[in-house]
């Protein structure tokens, strides 16, 4: 701070103009919004970790009893173990897949790209159900895995399916921006392929690799849907939260486990800070985009690799689709469409589906505006480091919060009788806000990445031309970032369609969601109908994504022409 103050020349002081003040005010406002939708609700639950069941302050007593219960401590180790294994499998897998998509010449590239996204469209219930059909005790391939699917193996397989697209998306972005001149230079200097890969490709994708690893690690850590369906006796922290809160109504202990789960988020935040500080802009104004040239051996290898991965993804989806048509697994395998008549399985019938669509659209619109404007404020405001750090931290938190903790926190915070916002409780709006908060991190990261790609020259030029910042934002920044903005909107939409763990506490009589209904239907034993509802959700999200691809083509043609020149 002192360094910044002492080295600040008087010219800059003039530059702290009305624009700067407005931006700073914006950052403060934005921080308040994040505090209300993330910070305070979280705290209102986590604070219970320091209270006993009657609400008396007990200091760290709950933490002491937590760390002295061996069973609970084992869950922490199990969580770390399964998260580490999944990260070590998913990140390389996603890296090579992303490499194939961006750096090789694949036939039907668009198809491979589309298939890699499928898992994101599916509720986490789907891989669990499909794995039981495939490898369960009555499964078609139960001999293949040599043991029970329930437990560690099941969690790992389902998590790979579930996390793969998230890692692939991040890594495709990381690998898509490369400077062909570096490769030409390496080639000219006679560097071996391995050397080029290790000294040019990998360092270029470093930030993406680390982000992908952090995202996968925390996703596995906090997800409880998969562990519940297929985890067997393998206890993890997320199921412990469930046991404490749902099984025993022990909010205090649930809060303690929730707090322990926040540790990876804090770590992710620190790692991100360090990596970002070291990151150098890859794409300078003079960079030449890298366009892969055909090379038979390499292309064949990667086509084969992508085919294997795609078949794996399609097998799980296909099994669920087929399962949704079966009359009574495994004793009556004749097919029926009756499982799609949801009125027979859940009182809200198809209504919950339309609620979901409405909620997803709301989350996409509200969330995208908030995330993009927020990220813009935070990126483009000069100095003001402390407040920007606070914003960055609040934006990182949701990634590591189990939905259960956030959902209960929302009850405590938004339902408090003295909260002026409590009119929101038990409306569709609270579901929208909760979903945006729950999926805040990735949207924020996407927006930040997109904004970092834009040369700060734009702002400088605009400022010297006395164009107000908001006009530069509306005329230049937002149009340039339109692809990223659409990406965020789609991301929010598909996640809003599948989210369960948090919204399960927040719906009112007329706002039940399809994803929650699917869980209820599965609980009631009608697995086929649950699979059917999952398939309907997948189809909806895939259709929206297809629209997005079309829109992207159109918009890329119109607005992104500058990128090609």
């Amino acid at each position: 701070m002192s360094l910044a103050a002492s080295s600040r020349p008087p010219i800059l002081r003039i530059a702290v103009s009305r624009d700067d003040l407005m931006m700073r005010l914006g950052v403060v406002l934005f921080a308040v919004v994040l505090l209300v939708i993330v910070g305070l609700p979280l705290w209102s639950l986590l604070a219970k970790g320091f209270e006993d069941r009657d609400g008396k302050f007990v200091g760290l007593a709950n933490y002491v009893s937590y760390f002295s219960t061996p069973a609970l401590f084992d869950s922490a180790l199990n969580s770390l173990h399964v998260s580490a294994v999944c990260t070590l499998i998913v990140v390389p897998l996603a890296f090579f897949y992303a490499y194939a998509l961006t750096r090789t010449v694949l036939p039907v590239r668009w198809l491979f790209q589309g298939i890699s996204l499928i898992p994101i469209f599916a509720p986490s219930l789907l891989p669990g159900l499909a794995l039981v059909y495939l490898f369960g005790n009555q499964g078609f391939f139960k001999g293949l895995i040599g043991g029970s699917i329930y437990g560690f193996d099941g969690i790992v397989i389902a998590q790979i399916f579930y996390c793969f697209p998230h890692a692939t998306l991040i890594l495709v972005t990381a690998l898509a921006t490369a400077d062909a001149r570096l490769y030409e230079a390496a080639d000219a200097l006679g560097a071996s392929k391995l050397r080029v890969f290790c000294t040019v490709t990998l360092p270029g994708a470093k930030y993406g690799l680390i982000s992908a690893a952090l995202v996968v690690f925390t996703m596995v850590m906090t997800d409880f849907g998969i562990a519940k369906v297929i985890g067997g006796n393998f206890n993890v922290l997320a199921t412990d939260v469930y046991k404490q809160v749902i099984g025993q109504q022990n909010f205090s202990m649930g809060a303690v486990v929730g707090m322990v789960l926040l540790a990876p988020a804090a770590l992710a935040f620190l790692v991100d800070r360090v990596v970002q500080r070291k990151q150098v802009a890859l794409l300078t104004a003079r960079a030449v985009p890298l366009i892969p040239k055909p090379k038979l051996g390499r292309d064949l290898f990667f086509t084969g690799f992508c085919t294997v991965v795609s078949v794996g993804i399609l097998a799980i989806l296909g099994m669920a689709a087929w399962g949704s048509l079966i009359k009574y697994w495994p004793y009556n395998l004749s097919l029926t469409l009756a499982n799609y008549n949801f009125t027979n399985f859940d009182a809200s019938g198809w209504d919950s589906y339309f609620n979901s669509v409405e909620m997803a659209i709301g989350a996409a619109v509200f969330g995208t505006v908030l995330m993009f404007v927020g990220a813009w404020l935070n990126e483009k405001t000069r100095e003001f480091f402390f407040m920007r750090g606070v914003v960055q931290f609040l934006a990182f938190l949701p990634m590591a919060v189990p939905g259960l903790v956030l959902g209960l926190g929302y009850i405590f915070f938004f339902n408090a009788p003295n909260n002026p916002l409590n009119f929101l409780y038990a409306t569709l709006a609270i579901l929208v806000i909760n979903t945006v908060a729950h999926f805040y991190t990735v949207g924020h990261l996407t927006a930040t990445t997109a904004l970092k790609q834009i040369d700060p020259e734009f702002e400088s030029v605009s400022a010297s031309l006395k164009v107000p910042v908001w006009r530069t934002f509306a005329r230049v920044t937002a149009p340039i970032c339109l692809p990223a903005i659409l990406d965020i909107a789609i991301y929010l939409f598909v996640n809003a369609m599948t989210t369960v763990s948090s919204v399960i506490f927040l719906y009112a009589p007329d706002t039940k969601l399809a994803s929650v209904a699917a869980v209820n239907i599965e609980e009631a034993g009608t697995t086929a109908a649950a699979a059917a509802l999952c398939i309907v959700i997948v189809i909806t999200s895939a259709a929206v994504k297809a629209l997005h691809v079309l829109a992207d083509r159109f918009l890329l043609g119109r607005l992104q022409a500058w990128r090609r020149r």
Partner: protein
Amino acid sequence: MTVFATMRRAAVLGGMALAAIALSGVAFAHKTKLTVYTAIENEQLEPFKKGFEADNPTIEIAWVRDSTGVMTAKLIAEKDNPRADVIWGLAASSVGLMAGMGMIEPYTPANAAALKPIFKSGKNPETWVGMDAFLAVVCFNTAEADKNKKPKPTSWADLVKPEYKDSIVMPNPASSGTGYLTIAGWLTIMGEDAGWKFMDALHQNVSQYLHSGSAPCVQAAKGERLIGIGFDMRGATEKTKGAPIDLIVPKEGLGWEMEATAIVKGTKNLDAAKKLADWASSLKANELYGKYYAIVANPTVKSMPPNYPADGEKLMAKVDVDWMAKNRDRILAEWTKRYDGKSAPKAK
């Protein structure tokens, strides 16, 4: 001319709209909307709502339904600003817990006197009134048993025989209320020492402790497991759908739990809530419960829904609900210490 016509049409339309709003306003003013939290099964929601509303045309039920654990957690989390008017169909132990936290409005419904004594809270006025009872039975898959030549068990003692190794699933009592009532039943019937010894032996045959009371019988029904210990009604409905399972009531007796009705303290619709509590304890309502459950609160209702095990009621353990509530933390801690942590790396 056209201008006038348009204006006249607009005026007529406007008037109609106003009238519609006024009418719906009147209709709205007449109907009291009761928010009812419940964990009853999905297929029961519509008949229960229709049954009540037919007798109380001025009141409308708006359900919020989820599993027992989720609804209990939600109700307790909303304690400072309750959103529910009535709880209709939630485990009596959950409602008892809330009564202890001062969240329940005591009220003795009009028809309470006609009900079996165990189906009442025993307070005056009552904090809750029971509807029906459910049991933790044994669901036994006969198709898998034939395939693997496994005999049909008839008692808890049978279940610890080595031939059932790794073929039993039951709910984890730390995450499921059904799980807790199951082990509380054993501890009551066998006594604490013998009860824990039984569970030690059973643990050798249990392949998984599940996070739901419904799941064990569902898994048994679908042949994932030979035997599931769990919620009886779920087993019966699976059997009706065509599952090859038998529901067995072990001869030593078994744990059970009730669904109950209670009024939430702080409701703004107390009169309507009382009407619902009255109706929920009526003979008519009990007959409705009897369509789904074999054991209901009103002794004159003789019901036998399809595929229910016979004589469950006779074998209901004499569990002390207060004892169950007071010793819950201790029993769960002991259970977790014995079976939960070390059950994971079972692979040999």
